[in-house]
């Protein structure tokens, strides 16, 4: 188990600043996910951690050891880490067993020990029996497991995963992300996982670091923190579909854009006259009557697991969702053209303009 400490890390490529003065600490035994849009520099950060690139400034420590910066430059092969690449990088000329055994061969592990650990790693990723196969005979998911076994076989204290599930289909992705999480907890290794997929991030991480396009870390926290207590609109938007509504304050009440409808809940303690109110589709509760915001259903789509609505209310269009169990109950199902009342179970208020939020994310 090893902690990772990054201090003041900066990196530019061809005059373009990718990372700027980045600080981050990952605790020993932690599963840490770096979440950010593509091109935000998270892969660059991985490559700096692995030692494939050298930082322009700042230091990286793995455990107590300074591996980059301050005159240190430990090559990748001496950093004692495992890494899984986005494109698997399984060596096409080696069998599954040879691929997985390679790190042990390089480390000159005794042959019987090597065989034992290779078999165990292959078993851990569920590929037992396929040892003699060549990569071309494996599916994408199986190749990814080979890459994972190869990264785990030398029992590294730190495992780096660079979007390893991207190229897999949805079912496999879901299965693999739990397997990775399970392995991480079983082996107790430190994992740094890079992805732009918030679902994977939430499922796999002890803590998440959300990065923006400029390579800045916006928020670091537990999945609960970043999902439910986002530090700003960028983080909120990046973690899932959201409605954003420009609100105007008149005295103590907040008005919706139509200038008439009044915010039904508790007023946020914001001093400005304008603010943005955000909520997720599942935060909206629909009722036939009551004191919620009055609206009209414009579109209702049944998506299997959920019912998806577009509702016009307060001069804007909301996206709302209810789970199927309720949607299939005729009493609680709304058809297009019906009126309804909206209650907000959860909400976020930001003192940023909607245009900045919409333009700033993704």
């Amino acid at each position: 188990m090893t902690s990772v400490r990054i201090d003041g890390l900066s990196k530019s490529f061809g005059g373009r600043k990718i990372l700027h003065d980045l600080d981050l600490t990952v605790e020993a035994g932690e599963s840490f996910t770096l979440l950010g849009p593509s091109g935000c520099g998270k892969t660059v950060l991985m490559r700096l951690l692995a030692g494939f690139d050298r930082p322009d400034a700042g230091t990286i420590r793995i455990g107590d050891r300074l591996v980059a910066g301050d005159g240190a430059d430990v090559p990748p092969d001496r950093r004692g880490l495992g890494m899984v690449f986005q494109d698997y990088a399984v060596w096409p000329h080696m069998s599954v067993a040879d691929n997985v055994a390679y790190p042990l061969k390089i480390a000159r592990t005794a042959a019987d020990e090597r065989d034992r650990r290779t078999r165990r790693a292959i078993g851990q990723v569920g590929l037992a029996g396929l040892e003699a196969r060549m990569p071309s005979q494996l599916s994408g998911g199986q190749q990814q497991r080979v890459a994972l076994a190869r990264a785990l076989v030398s029992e590294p204290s730190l495992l780096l995963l660079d979007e390893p599930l991207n190229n897999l289909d949805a079912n496999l992705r879901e299965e693999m992300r739990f397997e990775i999480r399970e392995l991480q907890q079983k082996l107790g290794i430190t994992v740094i996982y890079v992805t732009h997929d918030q679902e994977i991030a939430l499922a796999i991480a002890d803590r998440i670091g959300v990065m923006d396009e400029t390579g800045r870390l916006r928020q670091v926290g537990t999945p609960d923190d970043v999902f439910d207590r986002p530090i700003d609109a960028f983080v909120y938007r990046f973690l899932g579909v959201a409605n954003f509504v420009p609100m105007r304050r008149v005295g103590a009440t907040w008005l919706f854009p139509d200038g008439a409808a009044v915010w039904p809940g508790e007023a946020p303690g914001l001093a400005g006259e304008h603010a943005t109110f955000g909520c997720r589709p599942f935060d909206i509760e629909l009722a036939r009557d009551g004191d919620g915001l009055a609206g009209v259903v414009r579109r209702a789509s049944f998506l299997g697991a959920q019912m998806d609505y577009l509702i016009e209310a307060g001069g804007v269009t909301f996206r709302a969702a209810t789970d199927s169990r309720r949607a299939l109950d005729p009493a609680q199902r709304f058809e297009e053209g019906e009126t309804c009342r909206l209650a907000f179970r959860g909400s976020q208020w930001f003192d940023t303009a909607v245009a900045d939020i919409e333009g700033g994310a993704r």
Partner: protein
Amino acid sequence: MTGSFRFGTPQILFGLAVAILVIFVAVPVLLIFFNALWVNGSLNIADMVKVLSERETYKALINSLILASGVTVTGTIVGTFFAWLVTRTDLPYKGAMKVLFLVPFMLPSFIGALAWKMLLSPRSGYINRFFIETLGFPGPIFDIYTYQGIILVETMYLFPFVFIQVCGALERMDPTLEESARISGADLFTITRKITIPLVAPSILSGALLIMLYSMAHFGTVAMLGIEAGIYNIPTLIYERIHQSAGSFAAIRTGTVLSTVLVIAAALIIWLQNRVLSKGRYQIIAGKSFRPTEIRLRGLRLPLLAFCIAYIGFTIVLPTTTIFLVGGLKTYGLPIAVENMTFDNYHHILFEWDLTRDAIWNSIGLGLAAALITMFAGVIISYVIVKMKVPGKGLLEFLGMLPFSVPGSVIALGVILAWSGKYGINIYNTIWIILVAYIARYMAFALKANSAALEQVHDSLVEAARASGATMWQALRDIVIPLVRPGMVAAFFLIFLPALRELTVSVLLYGPTTRTIGVAIYTLNEDGETVYAAAMAGVALIIIVTAEVVVKRVFKIEK
């Protein structure tokens, strides 16, 4: 980049790559330019112009131009016509014909020239003698020792450059382009003229430029057929000067000046070709193969088939048979008849005569050594160019491109300048100087094959090895080398096969015991030992064709 300069594996590889290219390629070429431009320690263009305006050098330049242009025009017409015939018509046995039209690529053209000399030399050529003695013609029907003769022979061996390119383009062309013209009411011949030809024009042009490049720097045919009639081109004049004067200053200077002109011309052609290719890759020529519409030849079908068979018989079968038959004659000039035949010549050159036996082993040894060394050097240099992010890579890429544009005779002359003791090492007249020249000459092939293979090896495969604890050397040994092995094998044979029949370079560099197969045939012919030259050529053909066929069967290498 921050941090101090580290001396690690990347720097060693980079240094090695630069060193190989500088020593084997850059130094000889730069010495040529230096000797051409510098006289008595200062830049002297006027003197260069003076050398060029001497009657003989001037004539050689003009001759190179005449011959190259002539061969380019005829080769392009022949190549385009046959390519169209085997891809776009209903000619019978098209597949077999296509393979047969590529056979001339395997055969060394100087052996073909030797055969044509035996058939069409004005007095002693068998065909001319047949017409004069048997049919009572007043004089020879064709004199091979002329511009037309040289152009004719070179065309036979160079037209496949255009043939291959045009076949490829015609096969990959989207047939809907032609079909839509047909729907618009155009007949097939109009379509061919107005649609097909313009669309394949870049391929035709690119093949034509290849012919020109090759013909401009071509030694063998001109040496075999031209010298008799006083027709010299640039490479043969360089050879003549260096050979006669045994390396005098004036001869070397003429050689370097001519070489400079040759390099500039070659560079110009390559530049033009790159422009044609970069412009010509229209989207219409898609990557996949289509089944193109075929023109029905109708009544012309059988006459055209007969024409193709006659062409192949005339250009491949006739000269090859002549070589073997003359090689079996008791004395040159005897009629070809069973009572005049013997196996003694073949026996003599294979088992008794040191000169020819040495030549065979020299060629095989040189080919193997050059192929092996150049293959490994090519891997290292390609790796640095394709995979490494090091400053100064541009220089390396330029040096790597250099061998593409430097003709064989120029390399030979540069090697003489560099390795004849002036700079501490004298390997002149030894086998090593030929090896050094071969490495320079064939470096381009090795770089091409290896770069292509390396581009298939994704960076993350190497990085995965590094992350697994492998040093850069271990990653190279365990991951990169095994994955580029097909490229290396290809490079090996792309060098070994042409090296077996090499003449242009070795003829300038050979010593008393270091003849190659090509040199042996050439010198035997020069010395009037025509039957031995023919027998040696026959043996060479067997070795070359066997090697080609075995290699292609076993490794399925596409040229």
